[in-house]
């Protein structure tokens, strides 16, 4: 390791690296940026990688998409197929469909590319949804990240449009059926619907203009939009730095994780390769959309089990669940598909877009956060999220009602009726359950607490901590207003006090004190000031010290004896939490990041 030869080699490399950087810096003056970029720290929690998985799916989509675009013919012109797939030989079909058959049977490696492309789309949206749920349930959308939530949602919408336009391009019997339904949905929009479909389709359904236009949308417009939005999403993430779960050594003002270079870069690259590998395995081994079975689209034919790809299923399901109502007066009507097809998603996405505002209003929380909530910390928000998921799930299940009927040997009428009730009952039921579970977890969980503690914590003679003036438990959800909090529950109290700071699973040892540039100054209620204070948790570095003595810098965690705090923000000025002073590198910083 430290032999002379190795040291010499290291020094040679070192000077090589230096020469390279010098070359770049002479031209761009980029060293400060490069350094901060390479030193950038990304938290390591596994759930933070799901957004990345989605991004890598997008990369795979672009690469395979370019390949497919080289062979795809975006034209509705009628051709007679004489390719290698005999069961369609001699049939008249659109040039688009013929070219997809060609990709599937004639172009070498074409089929695997097409299937990888389609699987990537399916997994892409799944990863996006998972990512969005993670962001929602952990409150990562709160200030200062509301804008990125909005961009992310717009990404989701664009991806749904991109996915549907791609689903429609092969012009087989399945995709044509999907387009027929979408045509009817757009047609149903009051006042402008009929004009809009004529503009999009260039006339009555199915027309000949749509395929080339869809191709333009799918291959240029939406991808460009996605690339732009994704860049903005990432740039904002880069600037604001990733959120992290509260935990040992983590405060609102520090960040703990892996360096961008080399750790994160390599792991990110690895995840990209693994994503590609999984998609290739799916593309190679599992058929997706065997368009050759469906045959060319005929507007008067339809197959049983015609469903959209899963991520549009909730819309298809809502069309099935909405009763046979349409409204008519003065010679004008609001047609049936408008309500489940336009109004319903409009309201849903409206709520999703405005959720950061709603959330801030509910919790009276206008302060910035870098540390995440655990879902249990905000039972109401969690309940809303679970209710929304239940709602989407019921709608998605409804889109498979015919298949389920077949599978379960129940008539589909019964299934639809059950789901029509379920679409109201399931969100309420699951929401309530989620709420109760959150409360229960708050009470019994022996994990580290996240909540502000408004009461006075004292350490009793038995070494356990008690909170005075705490309303406890039930109100945990509203703790943000009330200034009371949870202190980890009885289960975790006894006998931990002496191991304070040395025990990771300790009970409520991370007591967040007020301080810093939190909410008090912004006029938030007093208690909120305490919660959002930059002070973060105690025991920043000390928790790792494995029983070592806390040194002055980080260690001051909780003094032996009692931790005394006033209620809420007032405490902020009195107790300066260790390492919590804003704009000051906390102790335990290893070569802290320089600010870009």
């Amino acid at each position, binding site marked *: 390791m430290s032999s002379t030869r190795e040291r010499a080699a290291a020094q040679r490399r070192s000077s090589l690296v230096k020469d390279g950087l010098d070359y770049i810096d002479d031209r761009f003056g980029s060293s400060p940026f490069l350094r901060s970029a390479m030193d950038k720290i990304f938290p390591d929690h596994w759930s933070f990688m799901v957004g990345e998985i989605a991004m890598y799916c997008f990369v795979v989509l672009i690469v395979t998409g370019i390949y497919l675009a080289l062979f795809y013919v975006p034209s509705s012109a009628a051709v007679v197929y004489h390719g*290698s797939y005999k069961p369609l030989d001699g049939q008249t079909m659109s040039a688009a469909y013929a070219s997809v058959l060609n990709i599937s049977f004639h172009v070498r490696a074409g089929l695997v590319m097409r299937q990888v492309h389609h699987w990537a789309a399916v997994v892409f949206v799944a990863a996006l949804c998972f990512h969005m749920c993670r962001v929602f349930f952990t409150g990562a959308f709160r200030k200062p990240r509301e804008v990125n939530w909005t961009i992310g949602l717009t990404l989701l919408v664009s991806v749904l449009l991109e996915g549907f336009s791609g689903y429609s391009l092969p012009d087989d019997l399945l995709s044509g059926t999907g387009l027929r339904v979408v045509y009817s949905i757009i047609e149903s929009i009051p006042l402008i619907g009929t004009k809009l479909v004529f503009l999009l389709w260039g006339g009555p359904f199915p027309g000949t203009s749509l395929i080339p236009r869809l191709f333009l949308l799918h291959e240029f417009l939406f991808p460009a939009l996605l690339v732009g939005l994704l860049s903005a999403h990432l740039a904002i993430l880069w600037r604001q730095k990733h959120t992290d779960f509260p935990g040992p050594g983590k405060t609102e003002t520090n960040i703990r994780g892996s360096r961008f270079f080399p750790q994160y870069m390599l792991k990110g690259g690895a995840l990209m390769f693994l994503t590609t590998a999984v998609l290739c395995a799916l593309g190679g081994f599992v058929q997706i959309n065997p368009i050759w079975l469906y045959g060319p689209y005929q507007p008067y034919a339809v197959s049983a089990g015609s469903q959209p790809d899963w991520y549009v299923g909730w819309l298809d399901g809502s069309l099935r669940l909405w009763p046979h109502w349409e409204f008519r007066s003065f010679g004008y009507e609001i047609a049936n598909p408008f309500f489940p097809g336009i109004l319903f998603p409009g309201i849903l996405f409206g709520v999703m877009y405005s959720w950061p505002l709603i959330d801030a209003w509910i919790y009276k929380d206008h302060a910035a956060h870098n540390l995440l909530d655990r879902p249990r910390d905000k039972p109401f928000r969690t309940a809303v999220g679970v209710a929304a998921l239940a709602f989407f799930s019921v709608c998605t299940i409804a889109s498979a009602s015919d298949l389920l009927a077949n599978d379960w040997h129940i008539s589909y009428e019964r299934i639809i009726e059950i789901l029509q009730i379920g679409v109201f009952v399931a969100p309420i039921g699951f929401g309530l359950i989620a709420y109760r579970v959150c409360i229960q977890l708050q009470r019994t969980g022996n994990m580290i607490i996240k909540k502000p503690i408004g009461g006075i914590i004292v350490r009793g003679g038995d070494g356990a901590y008690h909170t005075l003036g705490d309303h406890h438990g039930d109100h945990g959800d509203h703790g943000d207003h009330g200034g009371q909090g949870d202190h980890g529950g009885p289960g975790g109290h006894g006998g931990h006090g002496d191991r304070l700071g040395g025990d990771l699973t300790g009970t409520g040892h991370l007591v967040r004190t007020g301080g810093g540039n939190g909410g008090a100054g912004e006029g938030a209620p007093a208690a909120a000031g305490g919660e959002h204070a930059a002070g973060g948790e105690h025991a920043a570095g000390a928790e790792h010290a494995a029983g070592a003595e806390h040194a002055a810098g980080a260690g001051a965690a909780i003094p032996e004896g009692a931790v005394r705090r006033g209620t809420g923000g007032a405490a902020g000025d009195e107790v300066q939490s260790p390492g919590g002073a804003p704009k000051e590198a906390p102790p335990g910083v290893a070569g802290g990041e320089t600010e870009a």
Partner: protein
Amino acid sequence: MRRLPPALGRLRRSRLLRHLAAGPTAALGVGLVAFGLFFGLGSASSASTPVVSSNPAVIANGQSLFDVHCSSCHGIGGVGTVHAPRLIHVGAAAADFYLITGRMPLNAPGDQAMRNSPFFGKGQVQALVSYIAALPFIDHQPTVQGPGIPNILPLCKDTASATATNPNCVTLSLGQQTFALNCSQCHQIAGAGGMLAKGMVVPSLKNATMLEVAEAIRVGPRPMPGFGPGELDARQLSAVVHYVAYLHHPSSNGGLGISNFGPVAEGFVGILFGLGVLLFAARMMGTRA
């Protein structure tokens, strides 16, 4: 890439097909000459086991079987009762279809007839079918006839003979076209089956033999509409039959077909396997607290 799915090759070689293609052969001769002529022409019979026999002994055997097993619902002589329809003019195809697929006898009148292991042996089926086919003659109304055993044209051997007008052979392409318009709305485009209103099951076609499919098309087993020669001619019928046989093992070019159920099954696989494996990978790579 593969030129032609192996299933096609297998089909061509299949004994059944050769027999079907053999066309009108035996069945002429003994007993009721008119009856023999009538059924022999359309029958998918072979020298050894004609589906419909005109041998009076066989018909008599069929009658006794019918009286024991069928007459409680369909009435003596197939005249029909409140429980079950009249059978005098349903024809040989209907009888053969319901018996060889095990749909009859039913457990209880009113049930939907579903595929089952056949209750009757081969000889018994022949006897019963022959008896049903002979009923109009016994009833002295030979002009009113249900569909007989359909004749299935072979697939064209090469592209040269596969013209749209060649009356002697059919193509899979014609079958696909006809299937997509007339069958896929219920049986699903890959023949996976489905469901109609009131829990009526649309069976999967994965187990249906070519003869069964041909008979079902002509007969229209409840709740399926029957297709007469005016709707699907002999070529279209034969083409559909061949295409359904092809669907038993369609081109596996893309890999596992996951039953060809369409996007719902694909979504499941994509989320559970695709995202699942990736989440697992992320979990292995990242921290968990």
